[in-house]
């Protein structure tokens, strides 16, 4: 008979560190686990089949980090019960933590929520389940009390990062042109506190005012060396909530120290990928990042370049910080990409124009744009509820912009641009992959690298970015001209058709570029082809319809 085991379920497009840290914690406690990828709703039935077997797990842990996947995750709990699963169902992650009481109140299928970082909570919960002991009073949980009502137990102090087992790395890694990729974190949390950010809100719960913790750099370097020599990892994707600390001088020192430690361990042929706030982009730290840690992509969290937006989102930055950051990464030849939260509750037509100018100016770099969403636990949601402007319920909040003209612009934008910005194969996403492909070859295959590829990748980004800006301006002009709303649907259909035509043309160029690079490199596959079919062990991907 199989030993008691735990099914860990969540997104696994890449190695999901949250699940894999939990798997390691369970393993250290002598508890087996399996990780089931749940990347889209179509996988629900298959996961149910894997769980409801002759030897079902003693517990199923469902990752509900993303609010927009809550339907899937709660739905899986329901589907498991309907299929007869009788074990314990627990959930965890950012959204699960903030919505824990609502989730338990509305879904009797769910037994508990592991709140906050749960390496210790989950292990203790499973130990109790295995031993048949009471578990509802364990710290870090939301469970039902004697009356069946959701009740919170005290939160734990977050775990000491230096003592955690490294994340479970079962299976083969993802790869780009045959260069293996692994995600990792060197910190948890973020020192900033943007009003819309559930990460800041989450860490504020346990470390008020500080909100971030670091791993010892020796431990990080040891893990990287282990991955490099053990699994052939060459591209390290730092998924830190924010890779940087509040002090520029400390960042430079920290990055140089990490580079020294890697060198001492013989890790030389590698590249890194990081994320930064604009205010983190400072010369000394970024010179170390590019020249010593071989960073090939830095996502810069622009979010907005409008004074109004920066204030609403509590960004701790001014437009000049965005400008300086973009100029510095450009000087360093560092590939960057960014998102723009074009719409927020207070957006004005003027602030839209501020952001359009920014998008136009920096269109050489791939970007996406959308609306600021109201995430559970965030100050922005609190504000909107206080102002009676949040519509919906705990599962999903919606709102209208204060300025009705902007609301209409948003509705038109969403209609016309949804395919470009939000589909799984959205071109805005593909462009990021194509650019990444070129940068990987620039780093690892300088002998075949052609500057014309980089120029074409930039031209593709610019063509898409400026086309988006043109489309947005048409929408704004229509609204400001007070064209009748009865014509909005037809207008969107026309604009959408033009946008789709541009996308088809640019997608063809991106595929052609990837094919040219692929032919020159002669190994592996570019991300442009693979997209969400990256061959992780849990998602054995056979590239389908690989471009020429």
């Amino acid at each position: 008979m199989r030993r008691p085991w735990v099914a860990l379920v969540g997104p696994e497009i890449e190695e999901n560190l949250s699940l894999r840290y939990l798997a390691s914690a369970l393993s250290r406690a002598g508890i087996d686990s399996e990780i089931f990828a749940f990347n889209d709703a179509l996988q629900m039935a298959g996961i149910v089949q894997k769980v409801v077997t002759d030897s079902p797990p003693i517990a199923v842990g469902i990752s509900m980090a993303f609010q927009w996947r809550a339907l899937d995750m709660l739905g899986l709990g329901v589907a498991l019960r309907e299929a007869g699963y009788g074990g314990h169902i627990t959930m965890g992650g950012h959204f699960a933590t903030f919505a824990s009481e609502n989730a338990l109140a509305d879904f009797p299928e769910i037994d508990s929520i592991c709140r906050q970082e749960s390496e210790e909570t989950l292990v203790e919960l499973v130990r109790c389940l295995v031993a048949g002991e009471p578990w509802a009073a364990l710290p870090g949980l939301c469970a039902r009390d004697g009356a069946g009502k959701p009740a919170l137990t005290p939160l734990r102090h977050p775990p000491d990062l230096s003592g955690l087992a490294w994340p479970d790395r079962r299976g083969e890694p993802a790869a780009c042109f045959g260069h293996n990729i692994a995600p990792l974190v060197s910190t948890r949390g973020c020192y900033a506190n943007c009003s819309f950010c559930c990460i800041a809100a989450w860490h504020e719960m346990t470390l008020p005012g500080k909100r971030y913790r670091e791993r010892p750099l020796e431990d990080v370097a040891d893990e990287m060396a282990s991955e490099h020599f053990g699994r052939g990892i060459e591209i390290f994707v730092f998924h830190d909530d924010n890779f940087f600390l509040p002090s520029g001088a400390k960042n430079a020192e920290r990055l140089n120290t990490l580079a020294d430690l890697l060198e001492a361990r013989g890790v030389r042929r590698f590249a890194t990928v990081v994320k930064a706030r604009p205010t983190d982009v400072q010369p000394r730290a970024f010179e170390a990042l590019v020249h010593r840690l071989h960073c090939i992509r830095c996502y810069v969290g622009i979010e907005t370049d409008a004074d109004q937006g920066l204030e609403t989102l509590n960004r701790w930055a001014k437009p000049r910080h965005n400008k300086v950051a973009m100029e510095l990464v450009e000087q360093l030849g560092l590939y960057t990409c960014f998102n723009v939260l074009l719409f927020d509750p207070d957006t004005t037509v003027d602030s839209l124009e501020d952001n359009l100018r920014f998008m136009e100016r920096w269109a050489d770099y791939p970007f996406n744009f959308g609306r600021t969403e109201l995430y559970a636990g965030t100050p922005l949601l609190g504000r909107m509820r206080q102002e009676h402007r949040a519509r919906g319920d705990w599962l999903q909040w919606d709102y209208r912009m204060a300025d009705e003209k902007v609301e209409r612009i948003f509705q038109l934008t969403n209609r016309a641009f949804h395919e470009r910005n939000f589909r799984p194969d959205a071109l805005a996403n593909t462009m990021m992959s194509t650019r990444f492909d070129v940068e990987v070859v620039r780093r690892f295959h300088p002998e075949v690298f052609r500057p014309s590829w980089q120029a074409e990748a930039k031209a593709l980004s610019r063509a898409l970015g400026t086309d988006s800006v043109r489309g947005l301006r048409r929408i704004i002009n229509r609204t400001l001209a007070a064209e009748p709303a009865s014509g909005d649907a037809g207008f969107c259909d026309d604009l959408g058709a033009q946008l789709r035509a541009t996308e088809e043309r640019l997608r063809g160029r991106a595929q052609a570029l990837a094919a040219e690079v692929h032919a020159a490199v002669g190994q592996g596959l570019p991300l442009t082809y693979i997209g969400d079919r990256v061959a992780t062990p849990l998602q054995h991907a056979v590239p389908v319809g690989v471009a020429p």
Partner: protein
Amino acid sequence: MKKDLTNEQLPAPVIARGDSPRDRVMRHVRDALAAGAGAMLLTSCPPFGVVDPLPPPAQCRSTPADRLTSAVATVEPADSGVPSRIRVMLEWTFESGLQGRSGATVTGGTLISQSGNEIFVVEPDAGANTFDLVVPVTCDDDHSGPTDSRVKVTVTLGGPGGPTTTVSLD
């Protein structure tokens, strides 16, 4: 019983907020488990390599009945020659992705004609005091919200002010 209907416009409908989080999740489970047959695109993650993927806006994820700004039932003009028919006009907000689907049904009457997802002409059954018009709506396939919602418009006949409408989710 012969109805005595008047051609009157009615106030905005009562919106029933019956679409709870549990309702939406249960509907999603049904869709997801049935989707093995291959019909619809539900929620899915962005591809590998995308940094801080922007989520789609929350619209089209909450109550479709909220998208219905008015439901008005009127008696067909007498010169149509068929005075017992009722014209039901629905006005939807123009919001992302909400699409009408074919397949509107009527209980307690016969659907005579339909123009788009907005104008329906119904002939009530003889003797019926009410009929239900059920209109399927969906977010289009690019969206990840509920795909099989149905808005039910219950039309009550013969009141002192003419027919009245009540809107709910089916």
